[in-house]
């Protein structure tokens, strides 16, 4: 009985999720986020966070180097555009493969340790990859300037199929549909839904159960004679493939790959996204990714003029004072707002935004439903590590 309920709630969850993705441009318009570039970022980093959550949320292995896989995916995709074709499909397939292989390599070494040592190892590998991309491998990555397309690229497959872009610099297109703007968003959104579905399947599978067991007590698992490392490594590689896909999509929507995508701050960002939203929950990481990208793009764009307009109902001196105070938290100071929000959430809602959502839902449920508290204990997500 319970399992059937679970299934139906999953289907509803997936359908609601798909509906939200599909109506994104309308839904996010009122908060100023309904423009293609930010929506694309929501979808792409949503995929990245879903993948990271499969590792961190389920096995508890905290990787501080996931940005490296994102960067590898981006570089692979841009090189595919340059050498093979502007069609995103080969680029994405190769990006996922590259992300997977690279994570297998790093995971194979790092997974020999757990806890903080694992985190430090992944961090070290990611910084190494960043420095390689930044200066050592400049012929491949073009360093700080970033890898870009050129008119003179070979594009072997496009040439073979007689596709000619003329004198203009080509942009990625899916059989004639240009993938910038809203079509690009729907392309990313469709993949986000697919990834979300895969994530649900993993969460509900015996494999997912095994990963949760790794998180709860790995030693006990080992004492029962079960080798847990292949499971954890598989989770690491899967999340690396998600990251590769996200990196590839970044290149599809904007064909440029820069080394800063691999920096440790980018790795930290994905950890923040997951914890902010609620690690170990299905929806949490996607929401966390959205919140952080929203702050980064919208709050950082507020300038003094906008603030003065906002406070125009105040008398003149008060208006300037209010604008000055608010100015500390927006524009260049958007990190401050994000930091404060993060602290509040970690202190009061260790389960992230999803815990907050559950609390609110339960508040209403308790009034109408007598067995509410029991359910809430059941559905509350595990606190973040």
């Amino acid at each position, binding site marked *: 009985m319970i399992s059937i309920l679970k299934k139906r709630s999953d*289907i509803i969850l997936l359908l609601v999720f798909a509906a939200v993705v*599909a*109506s994104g441009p309308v839904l996010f318009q009122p908060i100023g986020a309904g*423009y293609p*570039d930010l929506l694309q970022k929501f979808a792409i980093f949503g995929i990245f966070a879903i993948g990271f959550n499969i590792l961190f949320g389920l096995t508890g292995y905290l990787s501080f180097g996931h940005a490296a896989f994102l960067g590898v995916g981006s570089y692979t995709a841009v090189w595919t555009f340059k050498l093979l074709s502007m069609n995103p499909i080969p680029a994405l397939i190769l990006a996922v493969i590259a992300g997977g292989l690279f994570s297998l390599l790093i995971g194979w070494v790092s997974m020999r340790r757990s806890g903080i040592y694992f985190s430090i190892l992944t961090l070290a590998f990611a910084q190494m990859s960043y420095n390689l991309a930044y200066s050592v491998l400049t012929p491949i990555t073009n*360093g700080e300037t970033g890898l870009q397309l050129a008119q003179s690229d070979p594009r072997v497959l496009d040439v073979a199929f007689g596709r000619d872009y003329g*004198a203009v610099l080509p942009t990625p297109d899916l059989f004639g549909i240009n993938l910038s703007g809203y079509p690009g968003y729907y392309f990313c959104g469709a993949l986000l839904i697919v990834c979300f579905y895969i994530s649900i399947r993993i969460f509900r599978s015996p494999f997912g159960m095994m990963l949760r067991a790794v998180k709860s007590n790995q030693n006990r698992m080992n004492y029962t004679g079960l080798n847990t490392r292949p499971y954890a490594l598989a989770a690491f590689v899967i999340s690396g493939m998600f990251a590769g896909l996200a990196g590839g999509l970044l290149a599809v929507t904007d064909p440029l790959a820069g080394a800063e995508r691999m920096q440790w701050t980018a790795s930290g960002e994905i950890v923040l996204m997951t914890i902010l939203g609620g690690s170990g929950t299905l929806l949490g990481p996607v929401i966390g990714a959205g919140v952080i990208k929203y702050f980064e*793009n919208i709050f950082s*764009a507020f300038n003094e003029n906008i603030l003065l307009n906002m406070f125009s109902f105040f008398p003149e001196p008060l208006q300037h004072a209010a604008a000055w105070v608010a100015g500390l938290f927006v*524009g260049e100071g958007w990190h401050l707002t994000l930091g404060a929000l993060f602290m509040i959430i970690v202190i009061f809602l260790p389960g992230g935004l999803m815990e907050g959502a559950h609390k609110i839902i339960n508040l209403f449920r308790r009034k109408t439903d007598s067995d509410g508290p029991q359910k809430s204990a059941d559905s509350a997500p595990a606190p973040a590590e």
Partner: protein
Amino acid sequence: MTDFKVNRRGLMKGAAAVGVGLSAPQFFVSGANAYTNEPTGGSVTLGFNVPQTRAYADEGADELRAYELAVEHLNGGGDGGMLNTFSSKALTGNGVLGKKVEYVTGDTQTLSDAARASAKRMIEKDGAVMITGGSSSGVAIAVQGLCQDAGVIFMAGLTHSNDTTGKDKRANGFRHFFNTEMTGAALAPVLKNAFGEDRRVYHLTSDYTWGWSQEGSIQKYTEPFGWETAAAVRTPVGAGDFSQYITPVLNSGADVLVLNHYGKDMVNSLPQAVQFGLRDKQVNGKNFEIVVPLFSRLMAQGAGDAIKGIFGSTNWNWSLQDEGSKAFVKSFGQKYGIPPSQAAHTCYCQTILYADAAERAGTFRPSELGKALEDFSFDGLGNGPTDYRGSDHQCFKDVLVVKGKEEPASQHDLLEVVEVTPRAQVEYPADLLGGELGPYNDGA
């Protein structure tokens, strides 16, 4: 596992979701736009995309001041600044083409990704019809490519790499600032006179397009008279501490150090080099010398006493005594209480030049506006007679070779102009630097 049976409820939900999804894009396709972000109301929006954080933040802050001043002047506020001295009189202080000029700002963080995200927001959300800004050539090139794809004009701010209007040039991109090729051509003769021939040079170079370009140009113009490169070491942008890079210079046998650094990088590396005693050293029987090819007053201020006697080149300096420069310094000083930097100057000029071209072309359409800028000759913007070359969208004007003042009269009066290198000496054929402009893109 999860069993996706089609039931009536699910089907209806799915159909509703698909319906919303299909109708959503149509929502936003607003008629048939003649070109991207054609301004239809009583105002026109410009996008100012500058670094507000990290290594080039000082330049970015000054650029933003200049943009705000330019907008004020375009809308008829203030004293009009260089609009009064500008040789073209198309602008009347009544906005541009009768539309009030408004602006949006963004932080590039001196990162290509962040800069492109910020520029995309301006184009897609705020409806900016032109993007301008820079302070890093890597970012400028990345944003220029984006503007080409999106079909808006990009007016480059402070970007000094050859590639911006060379290898990576685009039809929709225009640059007023000079480049490393011109710096090399202007600086080399002065260096030869000051330090003599047969020198061994150690390069410390910012590891990105501008640094590579700067290093190459200095080598190209100094090698003919016997300066040879002892070593060329790449340093990451925003390194903060350069001591690990400077120590090897002491024992390298080099007698000249060229710091291909800009912004806070130079503010950190030059004082460290001086503290390490490089300038008091004698190598190969010659005084050890330091050169900073691209100099700015803001950097000089940051580097303090270390800049005294250091040679470099600059696009413009506030101490110039022509009418345009005086008018600009006056109105900038009145508004902000400090003299403008070269970054502020070039950004102000670019905004005015864009507005003027729109006025003369009678439209903001990139292809027609661009044509109005191509091979446009003007004067009165502080650099003397200047040409916007049509074949690579690069401005040609005199280049200033400057030196850190030994006896500064005030905290802003830090650079003395050693030589004004005439335009003819720094000009080069357009095909020298490679690249292709391609056609204009008007976008949707």
